[in-house]
């Protein structure tokens, strides 16, 4: 603080102002100390991956699967994850939660052929190189594909996360949804950026 004083002296600031300024600085830090624990619980800051994970389990509400896809197991809503990325640990936290009257089962698969009866497939960013292969093997199946990578929606994916002005946003390729036999509610389409096949 002595140095700060010297600085003010150099600038010929009146003594009263110097003290005032330093008092304000100290006050700032006091405020942080006192309120920090409280404010963490109130104004939490979330990471993009946390928000994306929450969104993943919002989408099914606005999607209608063909009858035969839903019949397999009335109780369970199966969500598959292929690959590795930081979203995985958040998605798995939804295990056992309720969604559209079913219980969520999150399953990590290493091979696309073990997809079986998953209604939803989250494709991790690690799979970018294999995207075409994955898309080909689920072609025509009633699976809601969700991705988190550039050019996902233009390459046949249905929903893809994007960032927009510091918030999480998503784009939808309605054509890809139609191909998979899914009906996407117009409310969701209105919120989303619309994307087409390349």
């Amino acid at each position: 603080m002595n140095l700060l004083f010297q600085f003010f002296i150099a600038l010929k600031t009146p003594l009263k102002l110097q003290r005032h300024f330093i008092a304000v600085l100290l006050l700032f830090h006091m405020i942080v100390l006192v309120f920090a624990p409280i404010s963490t619980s109130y104004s939490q800051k979330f990471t993009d991956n946390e928000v994306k994970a929450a969104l993943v389990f919002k989408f099914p509400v606005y999607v209608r699967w063909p009858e035969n896809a839903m019949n397999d197991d009335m109780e369970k809503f199966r969500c598959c994850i292929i690959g590795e990325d930081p979203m995985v640990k958040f998605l798995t936290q939804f295990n056992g939660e309720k969604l559209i009257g079913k219980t969520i089962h999150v399953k990590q698969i290493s091979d696309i052929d073990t997809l079986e009866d998953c209604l939803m497939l989250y494709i991790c960013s690690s799979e970018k190189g294999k995207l075409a292969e994955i898309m080909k093997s689920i072609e025509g199946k009633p699976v809601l594909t969700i991705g988190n990578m550039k050019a996902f929606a233009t390459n046949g994916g249905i929903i893809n996360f994007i960032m927009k002005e510091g918030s999480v946003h998503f784009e939808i390729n309605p054509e890809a949804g139609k191909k998979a036999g899914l009906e996407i509610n117009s409310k969701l389409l209105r919120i989303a950026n619309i994307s087409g096949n390349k």
Partner: protein
Amino acid sequence: MKKTQGVIQGGCIFFLTAIFGTCFGVAGDSRVLELSRLSIEELISIKVTSVMKIPQSWSKTPAAIYVVTQEDIRRSGAENVPDLLRMVPGVQVAEIDEDIYAISIRGFNDAHANKLLVMVDGRSIYNHIFSGVIWSYMNVVMEDIDRIEIIRGPGSSVWGANAVNGVINIITKKTEDTKGMFAGFSGGYPGRVSGTVRYGGEIGNNAGFRIYARGYENHNDHLSQTGDDAGTVYNSVMTGFRTDWDVTSSDNVFLHGEMSRYASDTVENNPIIPDKLIRSVDTDAYHLLGRWRHTFSESSEAAWRIYHQHEKRREDYEFDTTDIDFQHDFKWKERHQFVWGLGYGFISDEMIKGLLGRYTYNPVKRDQSLFSFFLQDTVQLSPDYLNLTLGSKYEHNDYTGSEIQPGIRISWTPHERHIFWGAVSRSVRTPSRIDSHATAKQGSKLSGATGPPLNAKAVRGSEDFESEELIAYELGYRLNPRDAFNLDFAVFYNVYDKLFTYEEREPGIWEIVNDMEGETYGIEITADYRPVDWWRLSGCWSYLEMDMRLKNDQAADLTEYVEETNPKHQASLHSAFNIRDDVELDLSIRHVDSIGHHRPALRLASMPGETGDYTEIDIRLAWKPVRNVELSLNGKNLGGGHREFSNYEIDESILFKVKIGFGN
């Protein structure tokens, strides 16, 4: 110094109380489930922190690594890379004279510091004449830097010779992050102005570009190294472009080109000759870099990189560098992650007067080539817990022939948040053009940290000069970046051999020899604490001890010089505070220990002495009146000014900045 102690103590107490005060504030799991109660509309309107911008892989890297993020760059208010590096642990930064920097990692600092590798997007920017970097030529758009990765300790098993004490890699933003128009202007006291414009956009669906230009001019009246009144005017302009193109989903091509011009004139008023032009530098440079990356599969990737660069300093030197390298990463049998690479570099130069202008070279023109190969394997000894990295680089250069630089690293991750690591590596600093071929008269100096003895009539390089060698032992611990607090701790013990000194060959004629050896050791601690999204506190402390010895009584005793030009202690503390969503206040305090700066080589050898320790305060106040506009007031060195490496005085400065546009 009492007052500096006060500041440091105050800072420590402040830091500690802050940590204890808020430890219990970090709470709660299932934050995601809490989020899922919100509606889609609410979720997409939440402003999110873009996590730690440190890619996952870095937090697991078993090395002393520090990443300067975009946010750090913006909030530092720094106008150039050297000022940014001041916040990095283990890095010595000292401004020797107006716009001339000495920068090193873990010691051996000097204007001609040569144990450091500096790259921009994988392109080495070192000057082969003295194996170092001329920092003032690095005119970069600060807003275009994505991050700077600084590795303390040898990186030679992958990057080769000269990555002896560390590696600094500057990575620029991809074009998709710099769309739209950006303009920045700054001006302030003492006389400095700079301006930047950039425009970025898309070409079709899969490609993007940006074009940019930046220029600056600084005027400064000051005391020169020799203690006389001096004035410098220096200016630099540069322009360049970058394109990124996703040719297919598994092929990416990026192309970067830039040209720049740098000029500076220093006028000194010494008692005998007023307005004496003591230094005039006029440099033109350009480069073109291309990289093609192909992804074979999730676990296999290859990249080709090729670049050409040209640098010409009028009346001094000219050189062209062409470099091509290939690197391939792949996974083998689940447990092995291999990386191997091949490289070839070719440099063609012409030395007119060389650096500082008082050298003669034999030969004047020379071509040199470098061939290299490396292989590295990271083995999972016990999946998720224990990893072993073994690797080596083989290099063939025209000065010393073959060099082998192996390294071994082990990392233990008992828990995903904790990583312990250790490493032993060998590294060499191969001779530079000056070391081998230069002769300097009238007691000028050659490369390395040091000058020759005072009675020297001439000093000369020698083709017998061999590589300087290092065996480094390192240990570290890192609390991985997550939640509010992270910590990085590293200790090192470096054993050097065949270090540079001189020996008298004929009366008054001294020649460069490898007759010094020694050890350095030290500790570096970095902590970062972010209790709330509107306040972040980060600090670091570095300690360095150097102990040099002569291997031969006849050699010039440069041990003290080498030991004393590096501060023992360095500490810094930065508080990044958001007063409101649109107002930011940054405060930083740094303390640097005293150093000796005897410069026996310089003309005024009567100016030896000490550069005292100093504590400085920087303050930045920034306001965003509307979106995409940022106004800021940056006060630097408000502690009252100081000296860093010579008698050159660094004073307070005030800078006003305006930034308009996207991607800032």
